[in-house]
């Protein structure tokens, strides 16, 4: 099984440790991982702004980088959603369809494909609240959604439950958007920041020590708000916990 690793642009530049944790975790699980060197971005900033034509070359580059792999894995539900559901600016060749079909977010890959049973190297004796990126939740279905009448499930939680010592706390508004929203965070700054501040307050009231998510982008925004507000909360990507980096 050949896996191509995609590291989202913001993660590459701002949170390389999450990329490293993802790579090491996959290697630990005996996955043959390659990081194609010419990768840049999934194209989401353009597509979400309505600029599909402007995203076409970026999509093409992505496909060129990744079409030879059996699976494409990335530590981001949001970018996965972009590849799987929105790569529409280019011709839907076999290669494109192969890439769209075989792109997985790390949580899905561990939970649905590898079906990992244990993370014996990881320990995390902390109170944790899970943050769901909206694309991961409602686009990829990482978990059941509070708006729907459906049985509870949560892929991130069922993975984290396998880490010893971890304790979960619940938010009052468990799947309310935190206000990151990609370009929304800067185009609609006032509303975005307010949503982030409210999210941080909910997290603080929950008694959580750590906020864990499958998406660093939301966390970057929340962390930025918490830090400015002087709220002492820690934020970490699920890859870091599952790899035992913060044990």
């Amino acid at each position, binding site marked *: 099984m050949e896996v191509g690793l995609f*590291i989202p*642009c*913001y*993660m*590459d*530049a*701002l*949170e*390389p*440790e999450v*990329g*490293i944790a993802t*790579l090491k975790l996959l290697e630990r699980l005996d996955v043959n991982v390659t*990081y194609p*060197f*010419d990768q*840049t*971005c999934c194209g989401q*900033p*353009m597509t*979400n*702004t*309505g*600029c*599909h034509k*402007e*995203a*076409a*070359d970026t999509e*093409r*580059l992505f496909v060129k980088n990744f079409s030879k792999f059996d699976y494409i894995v990335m530590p981001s539900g949001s970018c996965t959603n972009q590849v799987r559901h929105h790569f529409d600016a280019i011709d839907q060749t076999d290669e494109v369809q192969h890439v769209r079909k075989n792109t997985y977010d790390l949580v899905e890959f561990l939970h649905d494909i590898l079906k990992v049973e244990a993370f014996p190297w990881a320990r995390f004796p902390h109170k944790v609240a899970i943050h769901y990126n*909206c*694309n991961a*939740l*409602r686009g990829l279905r990482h978990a059941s959604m509070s*708006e729907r*009448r*459906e049985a509870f499930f949560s892929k991130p939680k069922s993975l984290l439950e396998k880490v010893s010592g971890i304790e979960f706390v619940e938010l009052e*508004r468990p799947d*309310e*958007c935190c*206000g*990151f*929203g*990609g370009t929304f*965070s*800067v*185009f*609609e*700054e*006032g*509303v*975005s*920041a*307010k*949503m*982030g501040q*409210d999210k941080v307050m909910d997290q603080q009231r929950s008694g959580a020590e750590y906020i864990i998510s499958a998406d660093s982008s939301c966390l970057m925004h929340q962390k930025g*708000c918490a*830090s400015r507000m002087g709220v002492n909360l820690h934020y970490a990507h699920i890859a870091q916990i599952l790899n035992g980096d913060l044990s």
Partner: protein
Amino acid sequence: MSDLQNEPQPRGAKVKGRHPVDQLEAANRFIAAEAHQKMHDQRLWDLRKKRDAQMHLIPEWEELRELASEIKEHTLDHLADYLEEFERNATANGVHVHWAQDAEESNQIINDILKQHQAKTLVKSKSMLSEECHLRQSLEKSGVTVIETDLGERIQQLDNEDPSHVVVPAVHKTRTDVSKVFVKTLHAEQGNNDVHYLAETQRETTRPYILNADAGMTGGNYLVAETGAVVVCTNEGNADLSANTPPLHIVTVGIEKIIPKMEHLAVFIRLLSRSALGSPITQYTSYFRGPRKGGEMHVVLVDNSRSTRLASEKFRAGLKCIRCGACMNTCPVFRRSGGLSYGSTYAGPIGLILSPGYNAHKYRNLPFASSLNGSCTNVCPVKINLHEQIFAWRETLADEKELSLSKRILMTSLGKLFAHPKAYRTAVQTGDKVLSYLPHFIVYNQFNAWGRQRDLPKTPKETFHSWYAKNYINKGKGDE
């Protein structure tokens, strides 16, 4: 008095003719009115929670949503046939049926009916269509006194402000805000902001109008083709009062409100109030199939661009809307911006997808007032793909050259940068060193939009890219 009651009410968007509405500017003012914003958020979130509780009581909830969606799809596919069936049956029941192509014609028809009856006063219950057509303003110009009989709607009428929400029109106001309006317009006691007193003041001052009105008007939540009936849902009973007290009842209703049969009505009634307010049903679910003895009933069927939307593969699903407001209640952006920030009859997620259909230029900013989180789509009782349509509108606006210049320039340059790995690498890092600015859209924003209320992430020593190069490719080789 508390901070909430001392804080002046924030006002809505500054609408300047056909110029693009600056939703964000109004949203920022709403957020700045901290206590109002907090109350607004909590009230609407409370409605969302009550909705969830109702959903959990109904085992067939998701099945009902699917049925509602399928019934609406089917009806839209056969819209002309069902409208004709409605017209036939309503006419046979003694109802006068009128057709209006647009707002202007609808207002004219209503004006004419009133003139024929020498009607000078009209009591009306809530109708979003009449807001859409600016009916009240049109009638007032002709010298008709129009009285809104729904409490929230009456508050907004007296304050000369549009409704901020399709179900709870004055949800953005505090009791003190209402009290101030009533002191000015209804001679209410200065400083008495007791909610019971205020509601009673409205009841007592509206009642004489209801008793003596020449005509009554209601909207229509549903038209039933099979029986030729109009169904109206209210909690106050004001539609029944408006329709049953004066001798003349006029209904104004959009053509998309039709459903085929009575059995379908059950599906929608079960979903409507549960989705809207989290109550099992509205207090009054009223069924007007014909004029009462000695009375007269008119139904004005209004198109006003609905038939155009019907042809749009991308946006026709917006016609399934039953105006429950659930998408507004759950929308994190709406709860923090206030409905008036949208500067449009329809606000929140449904407003984002309906408004640009009326005027793409004026409402070009609205589809961006969303984080695309998708909660709206999940609560919608008729399964409108709201967040997908918001997403689709952005593309349509870009195609129609309605994207703001700053967005266009930024996206063109980003698109180029991301398509060229070497140029991209140079922009992000020099050798091992991560450049001290952020790699993408954040850095391009001259107003430092990220940093105004958020700390910037710490710049790491190296990118993942160079770490990988060092540790996996060739130690020290670095980038190609």
